[in-house]
């Protein structure tokens, strides 16, 4: 089982990210669980969402306290939230930023394996809106080997419908092709 925590801001799709990845994994025959950090929703406020993916049924219903992967959809959240809290020493931190890995390590003292992608740039180019969820999912799927672009076609079609699904698939694919994992500091 791998446990993932998503950080974003209300309206950017952190919750949707967890849901889409859960539905993708379930569609692939795996077991998965996605849930938001429950609270009154406020657009723009930091939000957290959780995801578990497993080859066997998942019975655990507590929050994720020691994630294997942390996905940061919005770089500004790192200034107000310790996003690597509880992240396992051999875990992976996946960040949307136009800065490089080393710059982020210097600023935030991250030590785990990292993957940094300019998801905002891809989102603005492909989707024309600053919503980074499907881009970050592409990076997550690649780096963690959890899904391929083919695996997300059905969940994306179901979620986004015929007008938005192709763009989001393209956004996913762009990140899937670009994402790289850097070793521990």
């Amino acid at each position, binding site marked *: 089982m791998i446990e993932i925590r998503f950080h974003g801001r209300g309206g950017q799709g952190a919750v949707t990210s967890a*849901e889409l990845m859960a*539905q993708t*994994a*379930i569609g692939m025959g795996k077991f*998965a*669980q996605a849930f938001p950090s*429950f609270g009154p929703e406020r657009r723009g406020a930091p939000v957290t969402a959780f995801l578990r993916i497993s080859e066997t049924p*998942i*019975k655990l*219903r507590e929050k994720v306290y020691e994630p294997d992967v942390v996905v940061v959809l919005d770089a500004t959240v790192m200034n107000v939230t310790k996003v690597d809290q509880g992240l396992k020493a051999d875990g992976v931190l996946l960040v949307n930023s136009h800065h490089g890995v080393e710059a982020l390590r210097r600023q935030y003292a991250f030590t785990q394996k990292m993957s940094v992608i300019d998801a905002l740039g891809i989102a603005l180019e492909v989707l024309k809106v600053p919503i980074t969820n499907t881009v970050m999912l592409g990076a997550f799927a690649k780096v963690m080997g959890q899904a391929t672009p083919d695996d997300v076609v059905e969940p994306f079609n179901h979620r986004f419908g015929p007008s938005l699904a192709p763009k989001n698939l393209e956004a996913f694919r762009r990140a899937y092709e670009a994402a790289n994992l850097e070793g521990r500091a």
Partner: protein
Amino acid sequence: MSKRVGIEVSLAVAEAVKLADADVVAAYPITPQTHIVEHLSELVADGELDAAYIPVESEHSAMSSCIGSSAAGARTFTATSSQGLALMNEMIFIAPVLRTPVILAIANRALSAPINIWNDHSDIMSVRDAGWICLFAENGQEAVDMTLAAFRIGEDPQVSLPVSVNIDGFTLSHFIEPILLPDKAEVDRFLPPFKPVIKLDIAQPISVGLLAPPESYTEARKATDDALLASKAVVKKAFDEYEAVFGRRYQVVESYRVEDAETVIVAMGSIAETASIAIDEMREAGQKVGLVRLRLWRPFPAEELAAALSAAKNVAVIDRHMVLGVDNGPLGLEVKSLLYDAPNRPRVFNYVLGLGGRDVTRDDFRDIAARVSSSQGVQTRYEIVGVLA
């Protein structure tokens, strides 16, 4: 064939109501409502469910509409939570005695004050004595299965009582997880059309809900209590039939690794899944700990629970509701009362935790097992766990 989907549990419950062909859904759509009735309104609007959807102005009206619809012979469903259930309160007590088998999904949440929208069991516990059959789901699959079973149980001519399906708010209602959604043919095999014993009919006029003077009030209440107590046999039969059709086995009380267990944890709802993982981990460490879970809360499954606890030395009862003014939670009170006459009366500990959405973790169950084993010489204890100073 069932279809395996990744779906939010609330939406899956709505799909179950669709599969059950509900005739009437009456609900108040604003907070503390869930996606259950939101999705039902979509299903009705899209023509996928041929039902009357009544968007009422309050939960009191929702339950009033449901009682009227059910009395007229309609298969009737609604859903609510916390303050919504509180606002239904007057009508909640009326449905059982009028013998209207309304099905109510409760996404269990805390009652105010202070204002809190998160999960615990204080809403259902405030109406535990109203006369409803109360089922508790542990996961999303059970939420679907218990919803279908609820129609079968409540509408049974021997029962004719309302049923609440308790689904932990957020911890179940807002989780996306894999669920097997049955197909219509399977559901039709399990769930016959609703044939009310008596119903409001302008061709054969009757009245329901009349005044009962001192000469008959006690008898009317007693008749309802008799029906509720007798419904346990129908619940068991419905679970047997559920297994025959869908292949999933349910019991009113379920035991997990209680063989040779010295300490048995008793719980209801979704925390039992997390508890079962904690028990696996404690068993691996050599601790003799087991779990007993109530799927049926009312009628209280006394014989089944007594049997499940018969070999335990220590019983740790978990309540997710704080009763103000007495040192017992509602489940703790029932278990103590049940075991007072037991031949080998175990020590009974009652712990209140997970109130107002405070996360319940494996550590909580390890902590409880440790508290029990360090309480040598103590026969009974009540604690509200984790209160910050």
